Structure formats: structure tokens, C-alpha cells
């Protein structure tokens, strides 16, 4: 076995690690970098619990090889809050009780942020389809959708204030 | 004498009776008496039973007191998800 040396950025910070060719990005994050926020729910891309962004694009980290991220920037749940300040989505998920067990929550937050980055004013249908790659078994999704709707509304208000 | 009502499939162990009278001060005594009188019930008692005493379900509760006129239902040991 020969390790592959990879240089990349995680949440903007430079990282260097060695991984095997068959290790996924999820393996690398969890087992080599100690970033266990991304969860392994299926390892086949069907549950979204391991969602991250690669150069800003939403993806399942279980469907990416660790070796592939050479030179790329990965966004994970650990990079979502700014210091003590939670991202509005994080706050709204807690406020709306949009999590019960919470294991799907990091994936949902990454996916929801990716959705709102592209579409700051999504309809309920757009939110539902935008989050269809993330499974939640506890909530029935109702409160998750409401949390995203409420965040979008608040962020639009904040942004228009900033713009003015 | 408390009246104990069994569920149907325990009948074979009580000579066809679904309702039996037992002299007992609490659930523990009641189960012991039942087992002594009807040894066929031992397997189920060992496997676990819950009881309903005058309408209230006790999942365990061996020391639960019984009144002379208490109506007791034997129930399979409660499980949940």
C-alpha cells in the first residue's frame, strides 16, 4: 500500500494528509482529519448525511475519493458558524425544533445553505426538492422546511438592509 | 380473593378457565400462587407478564397491593418502540 499525499483546503484552511487510493473524502474527513460532523448514513449517496461542498458545489463526501480533492476547497459543517456566531440556518434549525435526533442535521444544513446561496427566495416546492437528497426519519421534514423558509426570509431582510 | 383474568391462550393451562380467584396481597404473591396452582402458567410468568389492576397497567410492580375485590388482568409483558 502506498499512501497518496493530498494538499487541499477545508473550510478555507490548508490541510495536508496522506490517504489510500480507495479512501473516500468522508473517510478522510472523519478518520484522518477528525472532522466527524459529516455522518455516514449509507455510503451510497442516498441519504445526504455526509453532505459537503467541493469548491462551493454540494456533494456527498462518500462519493468522492480523498485523493480527488487535491487543490480543491471543501466546505463542511465545522466551517458553517463564524466563531461564536451561528449561521442563520443553524439558529433557525434550533429555534424551529427542526432536529430531533440530529444525525441528519449537518447534512441538511450544508444542503440548505447551498440551496439558499443559489436561490435566496425559494418556494416550498423548491425547498422540498432542493433537500430531497437528505433523508430525515424523525421530523417528517415539516419543521425543517419551515426553518429554511424562515431563514430565507430573515436573510433576505438582512441582505436588503445591508444593500440599502 | 382477587379475580385474575387471563388471556385466551392461557386457558389450556388452567383447565379451560379464563378467570380464576386467587388469594394474594400483592402481585408477587398472586403470580407465585398462580404458578403453584397452575404449573403450566410458569413458562409465561417466567417469560414476563404485566398486570392491569382495576384498570391501571403495571409493566412490572411485584409489590403492588391487591384489594380483596381487585380485578386483575394478566397481560403479556409490555414492549414499545
Amino acid at each position: 500500500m502506498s499512501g497518496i499525499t493530498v494538499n487541499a483546503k477545508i473550510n478555507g484552511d490548508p490541510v495536508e494528509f496522506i490517504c489510500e487510493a480507495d479512501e473516500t473524502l468522508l473517510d478522510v474527513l472523519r478518520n484522518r482529519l477528525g472532522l466527524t460532523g459529516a455522518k455516514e448514513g449509507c455510503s451510497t449517496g442516498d441519504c445526504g448525511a455526509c453532505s459537503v461542498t467541493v469548491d462551493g458545489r454540494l456533494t456527498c463526501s462518500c462519493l468522492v475519493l480523498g485523493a480527488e480533492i487535491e487543490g480543491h476547497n471543501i466546505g463542511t459543517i465545522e466551517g458553517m458558524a463564524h466563531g461564536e456566531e451561528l449561521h442563520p440556518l443553524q439558529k433557525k434549525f434550533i429555534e424551529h425544533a427542526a432536529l430531533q435526533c440530529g444525525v441528519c442535521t449537518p447534512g441538511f444544513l450544508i444542503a440548505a445553505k447551498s440551496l439558499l446561496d443559489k436561490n435566496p427566495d425559494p418556494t416550498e416546492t423548491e425547498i422540498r426538492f432542493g433537500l430531497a437528497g437528505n433523508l430525515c426519519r424523525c421530523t417528517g421534514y415539516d419543521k425543517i422546511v419551515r426553518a429554511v423558509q424562515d431563514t430565507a426570509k430573515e436573510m433576505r431582510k438582512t441582505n436588503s438592509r445591508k444593500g440599502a | 380473593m382477587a379475580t385474575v383474568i387471563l388471556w385466551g391462550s392461557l386457558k389450556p393451562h388452567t383447565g379451560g378457565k379464563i378467570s380464576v380467584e386467587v388469594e394474594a396481597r400483592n402481585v408477587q404473591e398472586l403470580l407465585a400462587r398462580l404458578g403453584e396452582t397452575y404449573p403450566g402458567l410458569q413458562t409465561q410468568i417466567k417469560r414476563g407478564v404485566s398486570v392491569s389492576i382495576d384498570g391501571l397497567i403495571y409493566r412490572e410492580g411485584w409489590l403492588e397491593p391487591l384489594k380483596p375485590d381487585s380485578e386483575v388482568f394478566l397481560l403479556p409483558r409490555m414492549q414499545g418502540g
Partner: protein
Amino acid sequence: MRYERPTTLKAAAQMLAKEKGQAFILAGGTDLLVRLRTGFIEPDLIVDIKSINGSKTIQKTATGFKIGSAVSGAELGEHAALKKAWPGVVEAANLIGSKQVQGRCTMTGNLCNASPAADSVPALVAAAAKVVIVGPKGKRTVAAEEIPVGPGKTSLKKGEIIESIVLPKRPPKSGDAYLRFIPRTEMDIAVVGVGVSLTLDGKGVVTKARVALGAVAPTVRLVPAAAKALIGTKMDKAALDALAAACSAACSPIDDKRGTRDFRIKVAGVLARRAAVIARKRAGGK
């Protein structure tokens, strides 16, 4: 297992040709990594083609669109001109997996995975897409429907790589559409898929049509009889009934965990009718 990331097609083809063990091409990896993870395959070599020049670009040419083989579904969906020209193909590609999968999956991969249920393939076949292949013996171009030859099997030879998929330039008053049936609204594999591409004349009569079915046979099925049912008509009820009947007749599906034979046969006709109506609307018909 080795991981390689060549920067030219030639180098990639050489690596694949030289490898004595099992070698696989990695673009989006949304199928490959699943098979790797579940122990279905045990590759000796994985060749990542995303660093190859042109593999990640969509080029508008005089004769149509050239889509690099590592272009993701999300990138296809963001390409306004392509979406305008071939909405059916783009929507088919965008149906593959979740938003997360869209960030990675490619049409070329969908084609090479050779699943009978691949979503983008009936749309590509209906669109008369061509595939440019690079291999040890040079370049060749084949029709999309010639790539899959059976479940999980392709006509690609050792050392061959798909460079791009080419969608032809469309005549005016053309439209295409893809519909699939899945039990859920998302995150599913097509139980039936139908791609329809057609061109109308000034009076709204269909002059050209191609209809392709997915998930109803071991490979994607181009159905000339279905096209014939539309050509020369204004797609009245009789024509649509004939289309549906031709599509149902072209099915030779199996019963499996995703659907029954009877269900697929019936629904192929239903979806063909619905897809044709969408395609006509996109072509500027009523």
C-alpha cells in the same frame, strides 16, 4: 489499487490500455464509488479524467454542442444555451440522483454505466446524440445507443475513453422532453423512462421524431414505430394512442423489485404520450 490523474486523453488511454488488472474511469464517481464501496468491484487502477483538458467544458459549435465527458449534471443545468436547445436532455440528466449527486454525476458516466434504467440515455438517444471515443487506434464517433450493449456492458474496447458527447444542432420548431416514472418524487431509479424529440412544420405537423425508452429492456430502446406514429400527424388523439401502443409494444421488461412487467408496459405508453405533448409545446406547437 492505484489512483491516477492524467492531463491528456492520450495518457489516460495509455494507462488504461497498459493495465493488466481491472481498470475503471472516474469522472463523477457516483456509480463507481458505490460499486467500489459495496465490494462489487475491486479495481487495480482508477483513472480520474477530470484534469484532462476539455473534459469539464461545454462547447457550442457550428454543428451543435460538444459536452466534455466529466461535465456534471449541475453544470449542464446551469448552461443556458444548452438548456434552451435541448431541454429534454438537460432535464433527463438533472433527474439523476439528488442535488448532491448532480454536483458530480455525468452523462457519459450514466451512458457507460450501461444501466437499462439510466435517465439521460433515452433522452440522448431521442436527441440523436453522438459519442466521440478516443482509444489506442485513434478517434471514432458512434451513436449514443451503440454504447450500452447489455446491463453493465458497453461496446467500448480496452483503452478506449469517451472524450465527449455531441448533441446536434436542431432545426427550428424542434422540441424534446424526457419523463420517467419513479415511486417517490426524487432519489429513485427509473421504472420506465421515455425520451421524445420532434420537429414540426409551419402547420404543426410532425416532420421528424425520435422516441426512446429506458428501463423496459436490457438496453435503451429506440422505437422507430413510435416515431412513425407521430410523423405526418398533428399529434391528435389517434396519433398519441398509436404512439402509446407502439411504445408499449416495444417493451420487453422484467418483473423486479422496482416494478412489474405489466406496469412498465402500460406506463411506457402513458409517459410517451405525456412526453410527446411536452416536446410539441417546446417545439412551438399548441
